[in-house]
C-alpha cells in the first residue's frame, strides 16, 4: 500500500515537473521569438535610415551647403590596383 502510494506520488511529481518545464520552455521560446522579431524590426529600421543617409537626395544638398561640388571627370584620379600577375 505504502509502496503504491510512493509510486503514485513519484509519477505525479514527474508529470508535474515535466509540464512545468514545458511551460517554461514554451514561454522562453515565445520570448525569444519576440526578441528576434524585435531585432529584425530594428535591423529593418536601421537599414531604412542607412539607405536614406547614403542616398544622393540627402548627401548632395548637404555637400552643396558645405560649399562642395561634384568633381568633373578631369579632376578624378583613378588609382589602379595592380593585377595578380603584376603584384610586387
Amino acid at each position: 500500500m505504502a509502496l503504491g502510494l510512493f509510486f503514485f506520488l513519484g509519477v505525479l511529481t514527474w508529470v508535474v515537473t515535466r509540464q512545468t518545464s514545458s511551460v517554461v520552455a514554451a514561454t522562453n521560446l515565445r520570448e525569444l521569438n519576440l526578441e528576434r522579431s524585435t531585432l529584425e524590426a530594428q535591423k529593418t529600421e536601421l537599414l531604412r535610415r542607412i539607405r536614406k543617409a547614403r542616398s544622393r537626395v540627402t548627401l548632395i544638398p548637404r555637400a552643396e551647403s558645405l560649399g562642395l561640388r561634384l568633381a568633373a571627370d578631369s579632376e578624378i584620379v583613378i588609382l589602379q590596383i595592380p593585377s595578380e600577375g603584376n603584384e610586387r
Partner: protein
Amino acid sequence: MSMARPALRLRAVQIAFALAIGTLIVRAAQVQLVRGARYQAAAREQRTEEVELPASRGAIYDRNGVPLALTQEIFHIGFAPLELRDGGRDVPVLARSLGLSGREMARALGKDYVYLHGPFTLLQVAGLREMRGVHLTSEFTRFHPDRAFARAVLGMPAAPGRPASGIERVLDTLLSGKPGRAVVLRDQFGRRYESPSRLDLFPVPGHDAYLTLDSELQDIVERALSDAVARFEAIGGDVVVLDPKTGELLALASRRADGTTPPSVFTSAFEPGSTAKLFAAAALLLHDRVELTDSVWGEEGELVLGGRTITDEHPEGWMTLRDVLRRSSNVGMAKFVRRLDPEQQYMMLRDFGFGTPSGVEYPSESGGLLRPPAQWSGASAPSLAMGYEIAVTVLQLAQAYAAIANDGLMLEPTLVSRIVAPDGREVYRHAPEPVRRVVSAEVARELRAMLRDVVYDGGTGVSAALASYEVAGKTGTARRFGPDGYLPGASTASFASLFPADDPQLVMVVKLDDPAGSYAQLSAAPLTRSVLEQVLAAQTSALDRSRLEGTPSAPGVPPAIDAGVVPYVVSWPLEPRRADSALQTVPAVVGLAVRAAVRRLHESGLQVLVDGWGTITHADPRTGSTVAAGTLVRLTATEDAKPR
C-alpha cells in the same frame, strides 16, 4: 435490538457509500467512455489552436547585396479603454506608441472599442503586447528601405484587390515560399505558446533574388534624370544602363514631370530618330553596299524624295558614311540607304531586336513597332533609316547598341543575377545568353569608331564628351507624334552611348520627352556626360576601373570646370623610388599642388600630413633635409599661393 440498530445503520451507510461510489463510477464511465471524445475535443479546442504559419517571402537585393525589398511584420491595433488595467499608466503609453495626440486619445477613450489600422511596426507596439485590453493583429508586408528606389521595376506582391507587379510578379513562385501549419497552446488569457512538438508542417521561406541593378548607379541615374526633367522642363524621361558583355541591366529609371515613375523603359515605345541611323549604317557595311571612302552629295541640306522633303539642320556638301553619322545628316542617310534592298534593311532592324520584346524578366514588355516591307510606302526606307515609322523602347535601343559594343553579338538583357535558396544554395546564376550575331566584329568596330567621331570629331554628340576617357554615342531628335499627327515644336531627345569608346563597359540610353531646347545635343547628351562623371566619381562596382587603364584620353576636350588639375592615372600601391634606402632626402614640394606634392613625397618613401588646401607653401622638415625613410613630413598649403 440495540445491537441490531447500529448494524442496520452501518449497512445503510455502506449502501449509501456503495451507491455514491457506483454513481461516481457510472458518471466517470459516462464522462470517460461515452462522452470522452467530445470533452477531449472541447478541451483541445480551448487549450490549443491550429494556425497557419506564414512563409517569409524572399528578399530582393541588388547585385552587391544591398537590400531593396524585405518582409516585415506589421500590426493593426484594437483596444478597449474600459479593459485597461491602469488607465493612468496605460493611456500615455498607448498615445506615445501609436502617435496619437491628446485630443485624439481623449476621443478614443470615450468609445467602447477603438480600432487603428496603422500599420504599426513591431518597435511601435513592443510596449503594448502585454497590455490588457489591447489586441494586436499582425501580418507580413513588403518593406522597401528606400521607397522610391526602382519602384516600378521592383513592383509589389499581390494583395487583396491588387495584382502583383514588376519583378515581384515575375519571381512570385520563387519568392513566396510555402506556408506551414502548427498547433499552438493557449493559456487562460488567450496568449499563444508555440510548441516545437506540435508543428505539423514547417513553413518554407521563399528564395532570395539578387538583381543585376547596382544601387549606387541606380541612385545616380534616378537623381540625374530627375534633375534633367526639371531643368529641361521635359514631360518625362527614361534612362537605361546595361553591361554589354553580359546583358545585365545595371540601372533603369523613368520619371514623369508630375513625379510618377511608370515602367516606361519597358512599356513605352517611341520613334528613335537619328539614333537609328546606326542600324542603317550597319546594314550598309554588313552587305558591302558602301566603302568608307564613298561619298554622297548633301544637296545643301534639302532633298525631295517620294514627294517628301528631307532636310538637314546644317546644310552639308559631300559626305562619307562616317560624316553622315557624325553630322547626323538626314539627306546623306536617305541617299545611302537607297543602296539597300527593303528586305535587307528590314532584316537588319529585326536582327537588332526591334519589333519584338527583348525577353527581359518584366511583365507587359512592349515589342515596339516594325512593319514588314510589304506594308512600306515609298518613303518608308529613308524614314526608317532616320528613325521614323519605327517605334522602339529605350530598353530595345540599349540592347541594340550593346550588340555593337559587344563586337556584334547581341545578348538577352536580364534583371536577375542570382537566386539563392533559404539554405544558401545558389539555384540560379545568370550567364550571358547570346540571342544572335547581328554584325561581324569588324563591322561593329567600324561602327564604334563612327560613334566616337560623333562625340569627338565635331559631331552632334560633343556635349557628351569627357576629358579623361572617351565616350562614343549618337544623338537622336525625333518629332513627337500626337493623336492628330506630329506635334509642332515637340520632340523626343535621346542619346545612346558606349563608355569607354574603345572597350565599352557601359551602354547607356538617355531619353527626354519634349525637353525645352529640343535638340538631343543640348539635353540628352549633357545628361549622359553628367551621369558618367558621377559614375567615375562614385564607388560603384559597375565600372571596372582597372580596365580603364590605357584607354586614351580624349584630346582637346576642355574640362567642365577648370580647376587646374591635370588628370592622370597612377599605379597603386605607389612604388617608392628609394624606399629601400635607410635615409631619404625631402624632395622639393613647395609651390606644387597638394596632390602632386603628396605623390612626390610618397614616392620618396615618406609619410605626409597636410594642413590646408591649394599650393604648398611650407614643408617640415625642409626641402633637401636628410631624414629616415618613413619620416612624417608636415605640409602647409594655402589657396592663395601661386602654383609653380
